[in-house]
C-alpha cells in the first residue's frame, strides 16, 4: 500500500509512476564526454609540437612572418584542446546529473512510492547557457588565430596587424576560459542542489511505504 505524497513547497518536482530517463542535455553529455576528451588529448601534443617547431624557427633565424604564423597555429591547436577538455568536463557533469536523475527515480520506484524528480534548477539552465557562451568564445578565437596564421604565412597580413589581432584574440580566449570555469562551477552547484533534494526525499520514503 503506497501513501500518496503531499504536494511539495520546498522543491519544484515532477511526479510519475516510474523512473524517468535522462533528459536531452544529459543524453548528450553521456554520448560526448569521451569524444571530447579524445579530441583534447590529440590537440594538446599538436600545440606543444608546434611550439617546439616555432622555437626551432626562431633559433635558425627564419622569416618573422612565418614564425608569427606558426605561433598562431600553435595557439589555435592548444585552444582546440582547452575548448574540448572544458566541453568534456561539462558533459561529464551532465552525465553525473543524469545518473542522479535515473538512479534516484529507480530507488523510489523500487520502494514502491511515487517517483518525484527535481525539475531543472536555475543553476543548471545558467550552466548550459554559460557553457555555450564559453565554447563560442573559444571557437571564435581559434578560428581567428587560424585566419591570422594563414594571412601571415601567405604574406597577405602585415606583421603588426597580425600582432594586433593576436593580442585581441588572447583577450577573447581569456574571457572564454573564465566563462567556461563559471559554467562548471554552476554545473557542480546543480549537483549540490540534487544531493540536497535526494537527501530530503530518502528520509521521506519509509513513511510513504508504510501501510
Amino acid at each position: 500500500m503506497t501513501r500518496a505524497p503531499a504536494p511539495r513547497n520546498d522543491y519544484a518536482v515532477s511526479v510519475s509512476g516510474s523512473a524517468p530517463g535522462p533528459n536531452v542535455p544529459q543524453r548528450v553529455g553521456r554520448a560526448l564526454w569521451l569524444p571530447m576528451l579524445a579530441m583534447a588529448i590529440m590537440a594538446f601534443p599538436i600545440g606543444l609540437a608546434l611550439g617546439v617547431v616555432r622555437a626551432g624557427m626562431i633559433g635558425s633565424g627564419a622569416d618573422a612572418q612565418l614564425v608569427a604564423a606558426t605561433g598562431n597555429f600553435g595557439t589555435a591547436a592548444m585552444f582546440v584542446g582547452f575548448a574540448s577538455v572544458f566541453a568534456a568536463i561539462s558533459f561529464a557533469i551532465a552525465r553525473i546529473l543524469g545518473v542522479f536523475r535515473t538512479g534516484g527515480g529507480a530507488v523510489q520506484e523500487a520502494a514502491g512510492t511515487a517517483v518525484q524528480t527535481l525539475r531543472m534548477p536555475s543553476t543548471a539552465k545558467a550552466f548550459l547557457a554559460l557553457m555555450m557562451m564559453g565554447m563560442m568564445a573559444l571557437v571564435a578565437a581559434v578560428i581567428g588565430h587560424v585566419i591570422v596564421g594563414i594571412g601571415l604565412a601567405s604574406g597577405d597580413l602585415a606583421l603588426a596587424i597580425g600582432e594586433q589581432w593576436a593580442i585581441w584574440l588572447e583577450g577573447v580566449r581569456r574571457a572564454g576560459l573564465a566563462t567556461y570555469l563559471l559554467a562548471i562551477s554552476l554545473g557542480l552547484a546543480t549537483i549540490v542542489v540534487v544531493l540536497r533534494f535526494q537527501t530530503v526525499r530518502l528520509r521521506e520514503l519509509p513513511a510513504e511505504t508504510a501501510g
Partner: protein
Amino acid sequence: MSTNLTTLSRSRSIPRQGGAGLARLGVAVAVGGVMLAMVSLINGLIAGSEVAAGNDAAVPAMLAWGFGVATAAFATAKLGVAVVLWGIVGRVRARVEAMSEALPRLVTPSREDAAASSGVIRTPYGAATVSSEPPPELLIHRASRLLWAPMIAMGVMAVYGGLVLSVVQSSSMASDAVAGRALGAWVQGVQFLGEGLLLGGISFLLGTILASLRGGGADVQARLGRAVHTLRMPITAKLFIGLMALGMMVEMAQFGLYAYASTVAADPSFAALSAWLGPLREFGLGLLLSGIVLALATIARVLGFQFHRVTGLIDRAPHSNEVKS
C-alpha cells in the same frame, strides 16, 4: 561499529549542512574570476589598438600586468570550483546519513549471509568485490583527504604572488628590458605552478568525493548486516591518477625551466626557450584537466553502481545481471 566511528571521525572536518552556502560562495568567487578576466580583455583590446596605432612603447608593460591579471582570473574561478566541490563533499556525507536512517525501514529481510560472502562479482558497472566488512581506505583516498587543502592554498598564494611580480615587471619594462624579461619568466613559471597546484587540489577534492562515496556506501551496507559490495577501481580512475601525476610533473618542470630562463634573459636563446615553454606549461594544465574529466567519469560510474546496489537491496527480486566469478 569501529568502522562507523572511523568514518565519522574522518568526516569531522567536512561541512555537513553547509553545502548550499558553499555552492553559492563558490559561484560568487567564480563570478569574481570572470570579472578579472574582463579587466584583462579590456586591457588586451586597448593594447591591440595601441599596436595598430603605432604606439608600441606602452604595450609590453600593459601585456605584462594583463598576463598576471588573466592568470589570477583563472585561479580565482578555479578556487570557486574548489569551494563548490567542498560543498559536494559535505552533501555526500549527509546523503550517507540519510541512507543509514532510511534503508533499514525500506530493505527487505536479508537472504544474504554477509559473513559467508566474499569474492568478486561482475555488475553492469564493472567488477565489484564482496566482503562481510567495509574494505580499508585506499592510499590515494587518504592522500586526497590530506592534500587537497594545502595544494589549493599553495596554488592561490603562488598565482597571487605572481600577480604582484607582474605589476613589478610592468613598471620595470621601460627602464630595463632585460630585467623585465627575467621577471616575466618568473611570473609565468610561478603563476603556472600555482595553476597546476590548484588543479591538483581540485583533483584531490574529486578523490575525496570518491573516497566518501566508497566509504559511505560500504558503511551503509555493513550497518544493514548485508554483504558489502564495493566497485573495483575502474580504468578511468587509474588513468586519472596517472594524468594528474604527469601534469604536476610537467608544471614543476616548467617552473624549473622558467627559473633557468630568467638567468639567460639577455641571451638570444631566451626567445627560443620562451617559444616552447609557453606551450609546455599549457600542455601540463591540459593533462591535469584531462585527468579531472576521468575523475568525473569515475564518479558517474560509482554513483551508477551505488544506485544499482541500493535498488537491489530494496527490490524483492535478486539482480539477474550480477554474475559471481
